[in-house]
């Protein structure tokens, strides 16, 4: 897919709790095709302290708008959280391969989109995409507490939403991979994104029940477009660059101990 580099105008910066925020960016022209699971490389201001671009997943795309859902974890994401409407961010996009939608998907298949923490970010656009193809995606979102209610109403527009919280204040108590639904319905396909331990337990579950499963990885990157060879993951086919052959990858290709 052709890659672009341009300045996007910030339309809105919405605070979501104390750790998360949602950036709505727009281009004055129409957007190229962007697939769910792809990401963008965000150029940072103050390059002395935040030298490299920051990789962020596509959260949602609508008309000429791109949404990014971001968690503040360090200096770069903190700086991004302070950006104001009408300022500009330079992005390289769209990057990576995106989630695959197998052609043998039939309408009554149970497709699970499992997210943990900020890992829910790429799942909204995937849900929208699947819904448009007439599937009925099931979101299973694992949050730390009820305060992390990120974009729930948006998720509900595109599928059925189930939640777990670690403190049990909302949905079922525990981790996503403990959710009772996983043990009562016949799951046909899983897309997962979240912390590595979470994705490993999803992968174990998928393997045990012989379910097709794709995960989205967050390897450390420099370029984001396949030239520096920094973001490698060992796979059964040798080293691959996650920014190019990922970030989405089928668990069968990984060398995880599952």
């Amino acid at each position, binding site marked *: 897919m052709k890659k672009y580099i341009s300045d996007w105008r910030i339309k809105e910066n919405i605070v979501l709790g104390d750790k998360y925020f949602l950036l709505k960016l727009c281009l004055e022209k129409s957007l190229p095709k962007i697939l769910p699971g792809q990401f963008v490389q965000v150029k940072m201001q103050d390059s002395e302290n935040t030298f490299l671009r920051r990789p962020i997943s596509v959260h949602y795309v609508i008309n000429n708008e791109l949404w990014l859902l971001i968690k503040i974890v360090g200096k770069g994401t903190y700086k991004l959280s302070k950006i104001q409407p009408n300022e500009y961010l330079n992005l390289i996009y769209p990057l990576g391969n995106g989630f695959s939608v197998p052609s043998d998907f039939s309408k009554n298949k149970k497709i699970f989109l499992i997210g943990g923490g900020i890992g829910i970010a790429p799942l909204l656009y995937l849900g929208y995409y699947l819904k448009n193809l007439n599937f009925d995606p099931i979101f299973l979102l694992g949050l730390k507490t009820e305060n992390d209610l990120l974009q729930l109403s948006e998720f509900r527009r595109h599928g059925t939403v189930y939640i777990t919280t670690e403190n049990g204040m909302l949905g079922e108590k525990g981790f996503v991979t403990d959710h009772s639904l996983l043990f009562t319905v016949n799951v046909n396909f899983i897309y997962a994104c979240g912390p590595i331990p979470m994705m490993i337990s999803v992968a174990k579950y998928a393997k045990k029940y012989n379910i097709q499963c794709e995960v989205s990885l967050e390897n*450390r990157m*420099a370029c984001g477009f396949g030239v520096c*060879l920094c973001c490698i993951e060992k796979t059964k086919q040798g080293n691959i660059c996650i920014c190019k052959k990922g970030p989405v990858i089928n668990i069968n290709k990984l060398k995880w101990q599952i």
Partner: protein
Amino acid sequence: MANLNISINKLKFKNPVLAASGTFGYGIEYSDFIDLSQIGGFFVKGTTVNQMEGNNYPRIIETSSGMLNSVGLQNKGVDHFINNIYPKIKNIRTNIMVNISGSTIKEYIICAEKINELEKIPAIELNISCPNMKYGGIDFGSNCYSASKVVNAVRKVYHKLLIVKLSPNVTDITKIAKAVEEKGADAISLINTLIGMAINIEDKKPILSTVTGGLSGPCIKPIALRMVWQTYKAVKIPIIGLGGISNFKDAIEFILAGATAIQVGTYNFIDPTISLKIINGINEYLDKKNLKSVKELVGKLIF
């Protein structure tokens, strides 16, 4: 419009702005962002005789104004380059040069012989300075004896433009530069990355899988510039300067210090169109200073 043409021996470059090995892939990765025929040339990823898997993950950590990497020359080997990549890039209308590495002199020779056969590759850049190789690599560049030996051996089998890329991780760069000049190097590129390190204080472990890695980006520019200046005074062959260049002003500084051409490395990751901006910037600078050619600027530091 000033004249940006330069030449190194008989090889002509439409301008002095080149892209550095390991930061530019095989060029085509940048074709969505820039018209490759507008840059002076590029150096493809370090190529070795045999396929190399490179080092383990993590291979990267950001630093103040730069980054540390320990990629370790991951590549599919020279035959793969010749059979699968060269046919796809050979018609790009700029100078495509191959950066080669080895862990023995024999490996350098085999690589150089094979690349010598490629019609559309007018030059090689001998990397005698990669800090991410377990065996060899750095050793060749770190003393005059081994540097001379490898350059001498490659010079015998390679008949086009031979550029030698030096390591900054030495006590006196001018000694190595003179040694490779004497053995027939046509030009010198400097600098490669500086060896550095980063530690995670929570688990008290090094961040890179290899413990140490190569530091690059704007943070190394003052050192690179100083080395270009010292080397310019020590040798007669042309110098290609690099290390932390991120805008046209940096490029002009290197040229004033004695570089005939410059390379942009890490900054390509931040702005894949930076080389074109640098070319424009040099042009405007020359016009402003009433200079007709970029050649008039080489080594013209006033002091």
